[in-house]
């Protein structure tokens, strides 16, 4: 929505907002301080989760959502912060992206994940936007999702019935739809400690340098043995299908190779073959299919360089 006259906005927001069906309703706001309370509140009819707010506030203003209750998760313990131990990394789902990017040890461990979150919106957006929000908003073009898929990230999903672990690639089910049950939310993300000789990378194509939505995004994580042979690989793609994709055939193209020209060519073919994109103002079907292969190949090249330079 474009800017209105201030007095119009004041009028609009001092009266009750209007539901699409014509009913007026009040929007309540709660800040639960435990995961149990948060799950209970989110189970209520008309409840909507708030983390960084960079999607919700735009949808509110545009009239796309009209919740009865906004549940701000930021006071729930362990929703914010970054931890590391011998089991791996844990990133709270409501940690602002800017805070994650500033975490030097995490950025050294998962540079591709940090590349993806540093491509979201502007400096201002990154000050608020969160991994949990980027995932659960379920945009096919979400930047962090292919990178998290490549990294093998697993979500801690909490609900009234307790906690379950869900791989990132199983959360988004369709544009704007996710697999969380009513009352469930993502508490945090678990990523492994990358082994020796491992690296990841994320590349996004947009027609300009900043502040745009992915035409294609590609994340690759891989690990090499002492002889430089790829022993592990995961490939994630964004904006080329109704959901972000885990490209199993892309990983197969790399594993067992020295990530040479032939392997990269096979990876590009597998990435292109996995695409099921739409034509829109950002790119055509044919263009997205082609660029997905190119970006997957280039991201694998960067991940390989990182793997070989890491001790």
């Amino acid at each position, binding site marked *: 929505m474009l800017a209105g006259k201030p007095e119009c906005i004041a009028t609009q927001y001092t009266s009750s907002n209007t539901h699409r069906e014509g009913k007026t309703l009040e929007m309540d706001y709660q800040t639960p301080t435990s995961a149990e309370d948060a799950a209970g509140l989110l189970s209520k009819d008309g409840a909507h989760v708030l983390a960084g707010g960079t999607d919700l506030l735009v949808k509110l203003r545009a009239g796309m959502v009209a919740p009865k209750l906004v549940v701000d998760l930021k006071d729930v313990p362990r929703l914010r912060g970054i931890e590391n131990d011998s089991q791996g990394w844990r990133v709270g789902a409501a940690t602002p992206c800017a805070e994650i990017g500033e975490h030097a040890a995490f950025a050294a461990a998962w540079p591709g994940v940090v590349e993806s979150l540093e491509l979201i919106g502007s400096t*201002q957006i990154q000050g608020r936007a969160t991994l949990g929000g980027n995932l659960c908003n379920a945009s096919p073009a979400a930047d962090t999702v292919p990178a998290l898929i490549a990294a093998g990230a697993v979500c801690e999903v909490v609900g009234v019935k307790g906690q379950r672990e869900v791989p990132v690639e199983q959360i988004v089910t369709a544009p704007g739809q996710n697999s969380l049950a009513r009352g469930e939310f993502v508490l945090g993300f678990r990523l492994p400690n990358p082994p020796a000789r491992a690296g990841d990378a994320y590349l996004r194509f947009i027609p300009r340098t900043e502040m745009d939505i992915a035409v294609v995004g590609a994340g690759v994580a891989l690990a090499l043995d002492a002889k430089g042979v790829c022993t592990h690989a995961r490939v994630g793609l964004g904006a080329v299908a109704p959901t972000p994709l885990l490209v199993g055939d892309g990983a197969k193209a790399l594993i067992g190779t020295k990530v040479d020209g032939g392997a990269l060519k096979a990876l590009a073919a597998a990435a292109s073959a996995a695409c099921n994109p739409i034509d829109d103002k950002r790119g055509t079907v044919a263009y997205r299919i082609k660029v997905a292969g190119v970006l997957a190949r280039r991201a694998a090249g960067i991940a390989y360089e990182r793997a070989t330079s890491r001790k």
Partner: protein
Amino acid sequence: MTKHHVETTVNGNEVEFLCATEQTLLDVLRDELYLTGSKEGCSSGDCGACSVMLDGRLVCACLVLGVEAQGRKVETIEGMASGDTLHPLQQTFLEHAALQCGICTPGILVAAKALLERNADPSETEVRFWLAGNLCRCTGYDKIVRAVLDTAAQMRGATSKSGKAAKKAVTEGA
């Protein structure tokens, strides 16, 4: 409609206000606290005209609920000058004519100050990327970028001069 009672700190002053859930921090700053320096451009986080600091983090006030400000620290353009003394960025923007219509200027000043506090010697590329979320439809950005780089140089000069002066004083004292 039930309103929330919010206590927060704005530019170092403790303030309280009443707001509905759907009022953004920008709505509250402008319509409840009458701090109209932060501008409304897009109300969707694209233009940066409402840039403020929230607990030391640069954000768009249009993408924060007013009620989220409870117990937090908000800094706006109104807190940038010290009394009648402009912040070096404000002074240099005037000298470089780094503004025309002025709508984007408060947001750009707040964002640029946040950059210089983190990075005293940014490259032109770093300035341009940092300010990518602040749209200006008048200047073409070049004068803005030059003003930020010039301010950074001035502030580094002032710091190193005062450092040298202090060192000299110590030497002379000895």
